[in-house]
Each structure stands twice: as C-alpha cells, then as structure tokens.
C-alpha cells in the first residue's frame, strides 16, 4: 500500500534501517566461517592465495640467495686474483710491492679496494687502512670485518697472506653495497607478506567471482529448467574453453530432456484423448447391458464386445510401450546381421494372400540379398506395418508395390499404394503418435503404425519418408547399408 505523504520521511528511514539490517546480515552470512568454507569459490580463492604466497616467497628467497651468493663469489674471486698478483710481484721483486699497491689504489675508480701491507710488528707500510685491524690475528685467512676509512664506517671482506720476511698482506673489498642489497631484500621480505596477502586476496576474490559467474549461470539455468522453463539454456561464450564445453554438454542434455518431456507430454495427451474413447465405449456397453439386457444372450454379446474393446486398448498400450522401448534405444544391444531379402519375401508371401482376398495386387521387386545390421523382429514389424497400411487404404483392384534396393550408402524399402494418400500438410505429422488423417478416421487402426516405423528406422540410423504416389502414399524407409564400419563382422 502507498504510505500517506505525512509518513513519508518515517517510511524512508524505516526502509533505510531495514536495508542496513539486511546488509549487516548479508555480511555476517557471507563472512561467517562456516558459510565461507562451504563456498567452493572461497575455497578456490584460498587455494589460489596460498599458492600465490608460496610462489612469491620462494621467488624472493631464490633471488636473495642467488644475488647475494653471486656477489660473494665475485668478491672472493677478485680478492684471490688480486692477492695472487701481489704475491707474485713480491716474490719477483720484494721492493716493488709498495709501489704496486699504490698503483692499484690509484687505478681503483670505485674506491672499494682495500690493501694493507704491514711489517712483522703489524705497523702499516703501505695501503689505504690507517691501522691494522685488531680482529685480524695472524691465524686468520678469510674474514669479514667492519672498517673505518676516512671516517666512513663500512664492511669489508678481507684475506690475509703472510709474506716471507714477516710481512702481513691484507687484501679486501668493501662489501657495503652487498650489505645494502641484503637490507633492501630483507626489508622487502618483511613487506612482502602483506603485499602477497593483499594481492592473493584480490586474486582470490577475482577467481571466486569468475567461478561464481560461471557457476551461477549453470545453477540458474538448471533451477529455471527444473521449475519448468524448458527453453532456458546455459550461455556459451564462444571461447571454446572448458566452461564452454561444459555448457554445451549441459545444453545437449537439456535438449534431450526437453525432447523426452515433450514426447511424454505428447503421449500422455494422446492417451488421454485416444484411449478415453474406447474405454468409454467399453464402459458404456457394460453399463447398458447391466441395465437393459433382457436375456443372457444380450449380456453375453455385450460382454464379448467389451472384451474386444479392451483387447484393442491393450494392443494400443503394447504398441505405445514398444515404440517407447525402441525410442529409448535399449534394443541396440540385440542388433545382428540380418538379410532383408528373404525377410521381405516372407512378408510378401504373408500379405499377398490378404491382398488377393481383397482383390488387390501386391507386386514386389526385391534383390535376393540385402544385408543390414539391425533387429530382425523390429524390421519385420516395421515393414509389416507399412504393408498393413497399404492394404488397408488401397481400394479393391488397386496395386501395392514393395520395392527394395540400395541407393548410394542407404538401403531403401518403399511401399506404394493407390489409396487416398496423405495430404502434403499432414505428412509431417503423420508419424506422430495417434495422428490420424481425415481420410483414415473411418478405418480401424490405432494411429501408431507409422510412429513405430519411424522409431524403428531412426533406431537403425535411417529415416522414414512419406511422399505422394499420385495417387496414393509412397512410404520409404531408409536404412544404412551394412558395411564393415557400422556392424561387427559375422562369425561365419
């Protein structure tokens, strides 16, 4: 109801309060640990964040170790080479060492080299350190020491060599730069977790929402479908990825389900309409007999007629079940090599007697050998149904033709009659269950004959075509020719 204008601000406030409460509840619901862990999106997000953190940490650690190690090795190599050069120079001409040290210091642009030559009492002779570092005793070879050069404190890696004559030579490199790098990397390591975590969380949220978008569409489609919207389908993005494949599979399944539902609906409608009539008739006969029969003979007659009505209903049921069984495809397991030649000859023999009785002619043109891969009983029944129809609808004196032969990769079995045929506009519907054309209304039959033929043809990978025979109906059932590819080899 529309609120009165005087209440309007109050109403708005109420709405806002309600919305806020809703939002709080939503947040609580979403972030409640149990809810969170139950969401596959959150789980995937967490897994993503975890993997991301681990890989980020591993990368940092690797960078540190490799960079610092490389610098260390480089420094050590430089010191070793330097030392070797100086020692060789000293051994050649002991007096020139002081000069060499001076030259090297002068040539050292980066100002990171450290040299110190001291005598036996550790008094500096040459070099850029003012005093012998106290930490370096005579038994030390490699060491890392803090140094003080021109008032600047630094860190140095040094090597001590004892030279003949009691001289001590100290060669080193200022490694302040490396220490700085280490500090930077250390700082980065301190900051990294928070960056990694925030990036991880952002990534996780992205993964989760991607996941949700896809899943939500599938879930929404499935929900809509089960609510009865049989036209709804999962969106296919066209990128051809895994989600698309899933969506296509789901859509195929939904198509099949919708088709089956449609079939079921069609059949149940048909049953409601077409079986009600004979059931009503049987019931009416029995009721009429129980009320009005004057003697036993009347009763017997009524009961017998009702019985035959019921037999008719049972026959229709059996035909329906048979079609359903065939359409479900369960009978493919019983397929074997069948030679249609003799099978068709037998049917011609069976039906030509009936044709003769009706004053009709049944002609045939059948090659002696026509191998197919299929179900013998069902193929017999399908062709028998076509012949039944043709005989039923052909006028006395009419001609019916049963022809068979291979056309390309398909086998065609055609039955042509000279009856009223099926008007073009009805032909597409003629194979629907219970469909009966205007001209067929007054002939006996269930309206299931062609449905069964079509079901059998489709089960075998073929089709049923209905055409105009001018006059009459031409029904053509096609079946795939038996090749090595579509049927297992016979044992013989």
């Amino acid at each position, binding site marked *: 109801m529309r609120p009165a204008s005087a209440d309007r601000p109050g109403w708005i406030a109420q709405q806002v309060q309600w919305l806020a409460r809703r939002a709080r509840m939503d947040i609580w619901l979403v972030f409640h640990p149990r809810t969170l862990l139950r969401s596959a999106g959150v789980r995937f997000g967490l897994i993503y964040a975890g993997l991301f953190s681990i890989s980020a940490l591993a990368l940092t650690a690797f960078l540190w170790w490799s960079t610092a190690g490389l610098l260390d090795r480089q420094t050590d190599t430089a010191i070793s080479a330097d030392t070797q050069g100086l020692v060789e120079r000293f051994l050649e001409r002991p007096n020139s060492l002081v000069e060499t040290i001076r030259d090297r210091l002068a040539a050292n642009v980066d100002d990171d080299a450290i040299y110190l030559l001291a005598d036996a009492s550790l008094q500096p002779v040459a070099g850029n350190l003012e005093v012998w570092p106290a930490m370096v005793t005579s038994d030390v070879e490699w060491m890392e020491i803090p140094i003080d050069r021109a008032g600047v404190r630094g860190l140095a890696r040094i090597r001590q060599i004892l030279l003949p004559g009691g001289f001590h030579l100290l060669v080193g490199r200022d490694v302040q730069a490396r220490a700085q790098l280490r500090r930077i990397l250390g700082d980065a390591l301190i900051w990294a977790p928070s960056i990694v975590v925030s990036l991880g969380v952002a990534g996780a949220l992205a993964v989760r929402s991607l996941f949700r978008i896809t899943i939500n569409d599938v879930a929404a489609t499935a929900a809509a479908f089960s609510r009865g919207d049989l036209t709804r389908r999962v969106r296919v993005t066209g990128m051809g990825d895994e989600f698309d494949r899933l969506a296509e599979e789901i859509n195929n399944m939904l198509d099949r389900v919708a088709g089956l539902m449609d079939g079921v609906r069609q059949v149940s409608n048909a049953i409601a309409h077409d079986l009600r009539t004979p059931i009503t008739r049987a019931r009416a006969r029995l009721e009429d007999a129980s009320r009005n029969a004057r003697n036993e003979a009347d009763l017997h007659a009524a009961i017998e007629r009702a019985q035959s009505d019921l037999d008719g209903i049972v026959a229709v049921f059996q035909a329906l079940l048979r079609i359903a069984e065939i359409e479900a495809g369960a*009978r493919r397991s*019983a397929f074997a090599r069948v030679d249609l030649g003799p099978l068709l000859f037998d049917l011609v023999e*069976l*039906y030509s*007697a*009936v044709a003769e*009785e009706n004053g009709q002619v049944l002609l045939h043109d059948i090659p002696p050998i026509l191998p197919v891969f299929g179900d013998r*009983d069902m193929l*017999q029944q399908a062709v028998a149904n076509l012949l039944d129809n043709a005989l039923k609808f052909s006028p006395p004196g009419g001609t019916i033709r049963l022809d068979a032969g291979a056309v390309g990769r398909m086998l065609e079995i055609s039955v042509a009659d000279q009856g009223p045929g099926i008007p073009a506009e009805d032909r597409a519907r003629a194979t629907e269950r219970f469909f009966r054309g205007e001209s067929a209304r007054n002939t006996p039959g269930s309206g299931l004959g062609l449905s069964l033929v079509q079901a059998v043809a489709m089960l075998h990978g073929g089709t049923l075509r209905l055409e105009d025979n001018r006059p009459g109906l031409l029904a053509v059932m096609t079946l795939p020719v038996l090749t090595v590819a579509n049927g297992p080899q016979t044992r013989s």
Partner: protein
Amino acid sequence: MRILVVEDDKDVAGFIVKGLKETGHVVEHADNGRDGLFLAASENFDAIVLDRMLPGGVDGLRLLETLRAQGNQIPVLFLSAMAQVDDRVRGLKAGGDDYMTKPFAFSELLARVEALTRRGKTEAPTTKLTASDLEMDLLSRSVRRAGQKIDLQPREFRLLEYLLRHAGQVVTRTMLLEGVWDYHFDPQTNVIDVHVSRLRQKVDKPFPTPLIHTVRNAGYMLRAD
C-alpha cells in the same frame, strides 16, 4: 493333467485356477515364490504357470533357476506383466518354455499350456502325422486326404503341420504367427485368417467333413470328429 499355478494376485489366480479346472485339469495354487518352489520340487506336475514378480523372497526367475538347477525339466509357462523384449528373453534364458504377457486371454493361456504338456510327450521323431483320413508324410513332404493327393505351398504345408502336431488342441493366431512364420508381433490385419481359409479351400472344401474348426474368441483347432 496336474498343473501348478504360482500367482500372487488373488483375482487373476482364481480366474486361471477356475478356468483350468473347468477344462478338466487338476490345479494346485501357490500365492508366493517360496510355497511355489516347495510344491514344484516336492510334487509331480505336468506344467507350471509362473508369475515373475512374487512375494516371499523368491521371484519367478529364482524359482525356475532353482528348479532347473535340480535337474527338474517340467514345462514352465511364464505369465508376467513384464512385457519388454529383454524381460521375455531373460525369462526364456532362465529355462522357461513359453512366455505370456499380462493382460492375457484365457483361451490363449489354455492353448499354450496344453501345447507345452503335449510337447513333452511327442519328443520322438515322427515321419507321419495323421488325423482322421488326412495323412502328412514329413519325409516326402506330401499330403493326402482320403487317398487323394493335395498340393500345398511350402508355407501351407508348415501351417497344416503345425495344426496336425497340435491336433485336438486350440491354437491361437499368435501361436500360429510364432510357430509357422516366426513373427513376434501382431499384425493389424487378419493375415492368419486369410491363410487358414486358403488352407481350408484345399484341405476341407473338396471333402464332406471339415477338419479345421474355428474356435470363437480363441483361434483354430484341427479335430477329427
């Protein structure tokens, strides 16, 4: 004949038992699989009419498999609402001799039960079938009636042979379709009637007494009377 009916539905069982008794058979009835198995294994019957879905933990298939495992070769006719081809195949594979689906016509059931019991007795290979003045020689594939040769098409010969083998029994149209043509479906038109009437033209028409009789609501019977 002694016939055992194993069927849990009271009305259906009553209907079968009454019908079989009226036609002169001795009938025992069990309404569950356990009792049925006990009766079948402990007493001598000429045939069993067996439902597939039975209460009591032993269904029709189990019952029959147990009997067959004991070496009992009694003819068994399945009578079941399970009508799919696979069900039928399973029933016959388990050792059933015949399979009928519900709903059924009693005349069909009777005809099939009697055919089953007869089958057991005429197992010896015969070369000659006769009924009244009709003679069929299976070796030379010739037919004579009252000394007069009758020319039959191969299918007519087989139809007459089937009728002769079941002489004195009702054979239904479905039995003829299965037995003579090996068809397992019901054509909508009266094909069987047409073929029987053609056979009559040759076998009965030229002679004073008919041998092939129509049995109302059931089928045909070849009878010498």
